């Protein structure tokens, strides 16, 4: 049994009569290297650990939960947290739907989400990767004027969840990333491009590709113009499409639905998207960087089909949102680390791939705009009303080909409408860090705001 699970079980022994306890314990080892001008600019090595405790009391009108957390694992911190959580619970409103997860009989899949190479690779080798990444970008094109940051990072993370309601789960995950931002210059004008590669271990990383991506994205934006405002078909590249899917995934959270904050509420069975649109959340697919064996309440993760051939099929639920909706958890609890409480969310979204590649999508679209990067997603998307307006850089599509670069424009519609306006889904599925994979997607009736 993992040491973290042992610790979690030991904390459960503190339960008073009539109360339930849930403990989440996490630890991590992180390494980060930033290269600048061929030297290490920053090197961070860190070990961190901590826990979150929830205590539940049953009353006549339902249960009350209190929460406490600490960024260490010492006995004093645990004692204090137990006391605080207990006290916090007395102020909560009794709620018949509040409960901790209980084992539901769904077996956890077996996934390999760790690679010993993260720990066994020497620091010197990791440093060399960051420096090489920077060198490749700087030497890859004479128009690259600067590399703002070239980074290597990795982690080994472990967590355990145990509760007096019978939950016992522990898991580990490793990851390694490189990312780089290039600044290209031509005639006094600067443009930026960002490249990345991710995997479970340093050996998975494709540094050449990350460098080439950053160079290509930065250099082909040179000479970008701000066009006049117009309506057109927007083609989102795999990265920006993944961002779009994550936003849609937020509205498919059972939590948002039962709280009446999703435009998908009460629409199960309706056609909410075009028939070519099938969206699933599947953390059991180990190709996802965010794949997971257990959810944040310790239930087995599972494959959930959310939108099938355009029809809204289901939402993702954690225990409490499922009880409010009169259904069962879909094993979709997520939490923001030790300080967060569980809520329902998507972890590993994937849109069923189409059968045409990006070049064919450009050909079929004919004229439109190709979206390569987004800014202002947090300030320009309202997940309750569905209003969507984000800043964009990219290229015009003319006569089925990429044409001149464009900048300082926004693309706008509503999320509801965009799902019904999906014209083409690409076959070029790309696994990306974050909660969604992405592929090229073309969406009609997008308002582009420019001059």
């Amino acid at each position, binding site marked *: 049994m993992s040491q973290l699970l042992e610790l979690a079980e030991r904390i459960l022994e503190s339960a008073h009569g009539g109360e339930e306890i849930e403990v989440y314990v996490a630890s991590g080892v992180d390494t980060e290297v930033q290269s600048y001008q061929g030297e290490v600019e920053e*090197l961070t090595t860190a070990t961190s650990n901590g826990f979150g405790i929830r205590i539940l009391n049953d009353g006549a009108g339902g249960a009350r939960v209190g929460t406490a957390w600490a960024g*260490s694992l010492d006995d004093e911190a645990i004692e204090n947290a137990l006391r605080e959580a207990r006290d916090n619970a007395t102020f909560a409103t009794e*709620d018949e739907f509040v409960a901790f997860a209980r084992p539901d009989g769904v077996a956890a899949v077996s996934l390999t989400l760790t690679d010993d190479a993260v720990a066994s690779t020497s620091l010197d080798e990791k440093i060399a990767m960051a420096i090489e990444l920077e060198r490749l970008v700087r030497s890859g094109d004479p128009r690259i004027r600067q590399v703002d940051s070239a980074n290597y990072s990795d982690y080994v993370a472990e967590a355990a969840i145990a509760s007096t309601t019978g939950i016992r789960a522990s898991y580990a995950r490793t990851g390694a990333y490189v990312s780089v931002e290039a600044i290209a210059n031509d005639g006094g004008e600067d443009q930026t491009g960002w490249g990345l590669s991710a995997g479970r271990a340093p050996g998975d990383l494709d540094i050449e590709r990350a460098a080439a991506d950053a160079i290509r994205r930065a250099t082909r934006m040179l000479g970008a113009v701000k066009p006049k405002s117009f309506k057109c078909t927007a083609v989102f590249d795999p990265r920006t499409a993944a961002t779009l899917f994550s936003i849609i995934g937020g509205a498919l959270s059972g939590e948002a639905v039962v709280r009446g904050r999703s435009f998908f509420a009460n629409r199960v069975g309706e056609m909410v998207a075009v028939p070519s649109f099938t969206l699933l959340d599947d953390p059991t697919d180990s190709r996802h960087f965010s794949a997971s064996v257990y959810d944040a309440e310790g239930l087995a993760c599972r494959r959930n089909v959310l939108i099938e051939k355009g029809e809204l099929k289901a939402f993702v639920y954690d225990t409490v949102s499922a009880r409010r909706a009169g259904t069962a958890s879909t094993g979709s609890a997520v939490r923001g680390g030790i300080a967060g409480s569980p809520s329902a969310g998507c972890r590993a979204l994937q849109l069923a791939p189409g059968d045409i590649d990006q070049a064919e999508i450009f050909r079929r679209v004919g004229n439109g705009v190709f979206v390569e990067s987004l800014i202002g997603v*947090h*300030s*320009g998307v309202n997940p309750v009303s*569905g209003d969507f307006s984000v800043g964009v850089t990219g290229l015009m599509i003319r006569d089925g080909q990429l044409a001149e670069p464009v900048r300082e*424009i926004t693309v706008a*519609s509503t999320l509801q409408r965009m799902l019904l306006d999906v014209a083409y889904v690409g076959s070029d599925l790309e696994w990306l860090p974050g909660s969604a994979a992405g592929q090229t997607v073309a969406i009609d009736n997008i308002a582009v705001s420019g001059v």
Partner: protein
Amino acid sequence: MNSTLIEQDVLARALGEAMARGGEFAEVFVEDRTTSSAMLDQRRVEQLSSGHDRGAGIRVVVGDTTGFAHTADLTESGLVAAARAAAAVARDGGGGVREIALGPLHDNPSRATILPGDVDKARKIELMNHADDAARSEGSSITQVQVALGDSTRHFVVANSDGLFAGDHQVRTRFNVSCIATGDTGMQTGYRPIAGTRGFELLSAEAVADAARGAARQAITKLDARPAPSGDLPVVLAGGSGGILFHEACGHGLEADAILKQASVYAGKVGQLVASPLVTLVDDGTVEGEWGYLAIDDEGRPGARNVLIENGILTDYMWDYLRSRKEGRVSSGNGRRQSYQHLPMVRMTNTYLLEGDSDADEIVAQTPYGVYVAQLGGGQVNTATGDFVFGMTAAFMIEDGKITAPLRDCNLIGNGPDVLQRVDAVASDFSMTPGTCGKNGQSVPVGTGQATMRLTRVTIGGAAA
């Protein structure tokens, strides 16, 4: 909380260890933070949470290289282990453990009058319920009210190899009200924050009810909203949250880390006219009680009032220790970090535009056609190109000099150096708004402020044809 977070001699020995391999500068930052949060959602009290985090971050600088390690183990052996890990970047150096002499602690007490720990949790819930009642009193179309209250007590000491030894006690309190109104056209949202580097005295019953009613009215008004226009129009920004414009349009680009890497459109422009003469922009950590207030920054430098742009002319950038050391100058008190687990970098504090002498109503009256933005919700910038966006969460058309139809949420987009030239009127109704600024994965509390002002044109990213 024990006021001696850590013994002085332990700190000195950890610094000596950090310098043992030939470091040129070392720093130990020890932090203890207690937080509490509560959420009232649809009249149910949910998620009362208490948190405690303490630990130390140690950095060692050698040439242009920084080594950093952090630990939650505040014993001497824990600190020494972290110091050795941070010092590992100093590869060639030697010389053994250095003797570091620290002066007496220069401590800064909190100015909060009601400390979070002294407030009855029942009183907090009473205030949240009061806000809920106030929001719902605005109309039956208010279908949802969410109230969040959070506070944090952050005590840190920072010591470095130059002998600096300083501490600060920062108490922050935040109260947010979010409302949803439901009508024939769907749901709309309203939001109002109250936040300050203050204790519970920040939150009067009146203040929270005011915020709640404001959030409710905002949501109700938007039920009649039409899609925002698409394209360039004159824009009037109401006082307060409009300051986010400057935070994004030039604030981030005036941070010395971006400047020294030539990754900002403002690099090399000190002394040049970069904005309309109506623009005098200040970053000011000394505005007591504001969300971005700090007695000292996270490197031990006193917070300062720094004029960045004066009458349109760029006067200076913002600096932290590392960047100012490279330039042989002193830090401007802008070295900030999210926690002991993070390296400090150049960050804004309270960034505001000095007020002008126009009248806010006159500015609107003299705008025949445009957009009036009552509240901004956030933004983002690419400092290298200067392109930035900021989102409007409450906005209206201006037609014939009058504020008319409400508009749905959207982003505005512009280029920093261009937009700064287009400020053609600044009023005198100055106010400030709290916000959370994210940079390289670190979040810190900041304030932004300005008076009602007009931009001759900005691109409105709406969905209207």
